[in-house]
């Protein structure tokens, strides 16, 4: 039978006490983390739900801004004649169709074989200085579409003239082919289309300003 008293019990090493401050720091941090963790978890779930894919293929059900940042046309029109009888280049405008409806019409770019548009612009008048508010739909110059597999969008390019507008061509795009960001389509001249190149930009609705600016570059 052994008889160990408190005096004989093995003593912890001298450095053992040094761990106590570390334990207290962890306890205090852990306590704060414990009482706030439910709230933070709720927030992080919300953030995940709102997370938007900023690259790659489009996500079904997500709404996107779509606009053509550049459209290039062949030097001659559908009849193989110079645009505007050789006096000037074509005045290019495009319309975007989704589900058979025009969902966006661009402003006209005068005398251009390569027309470009920015997806972001604000036209301010004097009256705007008197407190008129500007909505994001006014600021973003693009069509809004919702991606569903197997659907198509169509871009119709026109040469705007005073007398009558001439068709430059139409191009149908499978939405499955589109990616977030820049999408370029090089086209051959046909009897019904004189479009040489279309650069289409696709931006997810709800992304932040930095991401939008990067995708628009």
């Amino acid at each position, binding site marked *: 039978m052994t008889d160990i008293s408190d005096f004989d019990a093995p003593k912890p090493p*001298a*450095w053992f*006490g*040094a*761990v*106590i*401050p*570390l334990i*207290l*720091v*962890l*306890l*205090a*941090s*852990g*306590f*704060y*983390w414990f009482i706030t963790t439910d709230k933070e978890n709720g927030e992080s779930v919300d953030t995940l739900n709102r997370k938007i894919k900023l690259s790659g293929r489009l996500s079904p059900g997500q709404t996107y801004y779509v606009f053509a940042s550049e459209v290039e046309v062949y030097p001659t029109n559908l009849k193989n004649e110079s645009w505007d009888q050789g006096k000037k280049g074509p005045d290019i405008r495009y319309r975007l169709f989704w589900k058979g409806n025009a969902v966006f019409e661009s402003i006209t770019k005068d005398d251009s074989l390569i027309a470009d548009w920015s997806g972001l612009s*604000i036209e301010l008048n004097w009256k705007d200085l008197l407190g008129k*508010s*500007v*909505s*994001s739909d006014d*600021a*973003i110059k693009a069509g809004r579409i919702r991606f569903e597999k197997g659907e198509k969008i169509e871009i119709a390019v026109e040469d705007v003239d005073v007398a009558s507008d001439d068709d430059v061509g139409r191009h149908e795009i499978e939405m499955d082919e589109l990616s977030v960001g820049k999408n370029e389509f090089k086209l051959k001249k046909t009897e019904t289309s004189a479009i040489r190149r279309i650069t289409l930009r696709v931006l997810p609705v709800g992304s*932040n*300003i*930095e991401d*939008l600016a990067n995708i628009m570059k």
Partner: protein
Amino acid sequence: MNVTRFLIACSSLLLGLGLIGPTLTIFPKAGDLTWFIKIIAPEELEVSTYSILGVIQKLFQTNDIFLAMILAMFSVFSPVLKLSFYWHASGLKDSNKFNSTLQIIHYVGKFSMAEVFALALIIVTIKSFPGGSTANLEWGAYLFTFSVICSMFVSFRLDSRKG
């Protein structure tokens, strides 16, 4: 428990809360374009609050490993190490061991105020941003400061024992 150890315990608890509690709140502004950014991307102007550990985590996530390590070393490991040495020293009875431990404490202590310097630097940087962005200290920063003050009292008490 003696007064010195009580102060070390207080300092440790305050440090733990100071590290994880909100330390810095940033109020972003975009100058004359603030109204426009509020329309197009209001989340960019959302007020954000960070803790010291949160900043370190964010730096790791953004691959700023060097900065994350520096901040972690100066604001987490060094103060904890200093408090551990204080606790150890407060229980020493051998004057030689006590003096050598105190020397190590003074060496480690040189690094543990760097976090306050880093906070000051962040605030000055944010306040100098164009667009009127501002940053405010939150209660986590004050707890951290009180932790430092507590540890200073510990240091004074240990120094007086040395004499």
